[in-house]
């Protein structure tokens, strides 16, 4: 409820990768609080569906742009246009990313490079621009979806994991640089969540409900937290996973 009271003026939120399952669930909560949105995604039909949903749920303003965020050359123009349309920006929420095909990436560098480009290089380009914009204004929150998979490489998804590890480290450093300038950098590390991205994976109890994850993200962004695990139990789990000795870890099937 405090979140709601804090946002008497609807916030201006830029969402990159707005059709991702986690982004969509998060935006629904912000929409119910009356936020304004600029939504970016690759697929026009999906983006239109998300925009209509947020508008119906109470968003005070929704504008969209179709863009392939892999195309880093177009980032400056896109971001400038978005902020212009929103007439400012309180929160930039980066949620685009791909799981990719690990088995394929093990055999083929181009597949691995594509995963790393989408999950690391493209966010680095976006966040660099956004951070400089925010530093100039001395305000703003940059919230980025990373993953628990970045905390330690595992044989089942180390290509995806390493792209997220790079992203998390980049955000740590950026936070260190811009915190004193009044800019917040929030690194969000979800465990497995039931979304379209994980739809083909066998489900177990460890898959979190997307709405619960979204609520935790909204809270973390409102408080300007540094790094959050969602659900929070993953902080403890990953603490243990990070501290398993390598000579044991390399024998495990994870």
């Amino acid at each position: 409820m405090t979140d709601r009271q804090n946002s008497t003026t609807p916030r201006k939120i830029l969402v990159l990768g707005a059709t991702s399952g986690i982004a969509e669930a998060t935006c629904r909560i912000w929409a119910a609080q009356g936020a304004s949105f600029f939504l970016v995604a690759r697929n026009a039909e999906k983006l239109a569906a998300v925009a209509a949903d947020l508008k119906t749920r109470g968003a005070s303003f929704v504008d969209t742009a179709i863009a392939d965020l892999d195309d880093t050359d177009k980032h400056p123009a896109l971001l400038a246009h978005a902020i212009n349309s929103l007439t400012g920006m309180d929160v930039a929420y980066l949620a685009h990313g791909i799981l990719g095909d690990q088995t394929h990436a093990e055999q083929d560098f181009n597949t691995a490079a594509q995963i790393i480009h989408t999950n690391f290089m493209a966010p680095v380009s976006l966040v660099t621009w956004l951070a400089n914009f925010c530093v100039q204004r001395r305000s703003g929150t940059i919230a980025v979806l990373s993953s628990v998979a970045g905390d330690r490489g595992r044989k089942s998804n180390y290509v995806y994991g390493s792209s997220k590890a790079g992203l998390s480290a980049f955000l740590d450093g950026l936070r260190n640089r811009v915190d004193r300038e009044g800019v917040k950098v929030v690194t969000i590390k979800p465990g497995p969540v039931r979304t379209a991205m994980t739809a083909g994976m066998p489900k177990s109890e460890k898959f979190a409900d997307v709405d619960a994850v979204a609520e935790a993200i909204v809270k973390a962004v409102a408080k300007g937290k540094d790094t959050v695990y969602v659900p929070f139990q993953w902080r403890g789990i990953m603490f243990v996973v990070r501290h398993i000795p390598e000579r044991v870890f390399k024998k495990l099937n994870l």
Partner: protein
Amino acid sequence: MPAAPPATEQLNLRVSEGQTPSAPFESWGRYPTYGATVIPLHWQNDFSAIAPSLLNGALPVGMGRSYGDACLLKDGNLLVTTGMNRLITFDPETGLLTAEAGITLAQILDFAVPRGFFLPVSPGTKYVTLGGAIANDIHGKNHHMAGTFGCHVTQFELVRSDGTRKLCSPMENPDWYAATIGGLGLTGFISWATLRLKPIVSRLIDYEGIQFHGIDEFLALTDESKDVEYTVSWVDVTSTGKNFARGIFMQGDHSAKRDTLLPSPKPKLVFPFDAPGFALNRLSVSLFNAAFFHKQFSKHSVAVQDYEPFFYPLDKVLHWNRMYGKRGLLQFQYVIPWEHAKEGTVAILHEVAKSGLASFLAVLKAFGDVPSPGMMSFPKPGITLALDFPIKQDRTFPLVHRLADMVYEFGGRLYPAKDAAMTAMQYQAFYPQWQQFARYRDPLLTSSFWERVTGETSGI
């Protein structure tokens, strides 16, 4: 610059990868259980995108709250729609809500109640999808006034597996509209629908509970409460003699006193394990029924309560179906037209009491005469009774078949959404229009229920 992955990759289609793991899928009754390939859909166009690659037949399913095999497809593809839960438009002047078909009634209530709107018709659980509510043309406690769910669906889009799209309403493609309402998800894929919500000023229900003894008292109460919006009765199906057909008549109206519309905290009590078989015997069921009957100490009680416990008493216990153990339960719901409603109900209640297989509580209600727009809809004017039976080897099925024959003799019919047992002959006698309906079936779509009761096979 790496190219964007193809659209199908984002769907993570197990079928297209040639490694179709078959997972057991349970309906709410937990009987039968069939292996099927579960494919979650997230976007309105997913169905068109994947339909050409589905060879073994497919069935759109939502929350899987149908009791029997109407939401199952043995060795086929189950297209789970719950990821398609977006709102499309809402008009606070008219109450018209357009949403994707995978949205649940719970999600609709979360959106609508704080805005002063409510479902026009609600079943006993809010964990069903909009598409499922249309496909089964569900009914609720206000059937005598409001008719079925389909009466309030103003339009929807039907996507056929050949890629054609039909806008269906009473004006546009009216035959497809009629075939799809109550059409068990077989006429095509419902991508979105428009529902007319009704205004409320409070979350509260003015409730009244009255004990009755026997069907005559039930009928008298039904007659007296014609103008009350919601009525339903819980009847004790275990008692004989002077307690035969005793029950509690429950009625309520939305409170007219302007009050809070804000949500209350969510109760989450999960039935944690499969109850052992011995937990459910004649004695425990009788004790439960007696306790329920006497829960209401006075013959007559009045209260004001939140809509949640009034409409969804069992939703408080998620997975309450586990109470019946691993073998599951058979549901049985009939409607018998007024002409034979009383004698039929008395005869069936006697048969059930005599069998000793009776269920916890049975739900008894009078259906009204608002016609349903659906060609295959279950409700019609008369008395409806819903029962559940724990599955006991050798005894439950013969009883249920016997009861189904009695229903037929009294001119009634059974509810496919709650059935796992009726024979092909019984079904075809209950729904003689089934062959006319079959012409509207999408060649890709079928269900284990449909194959069982028609002999038609799956696939294209």
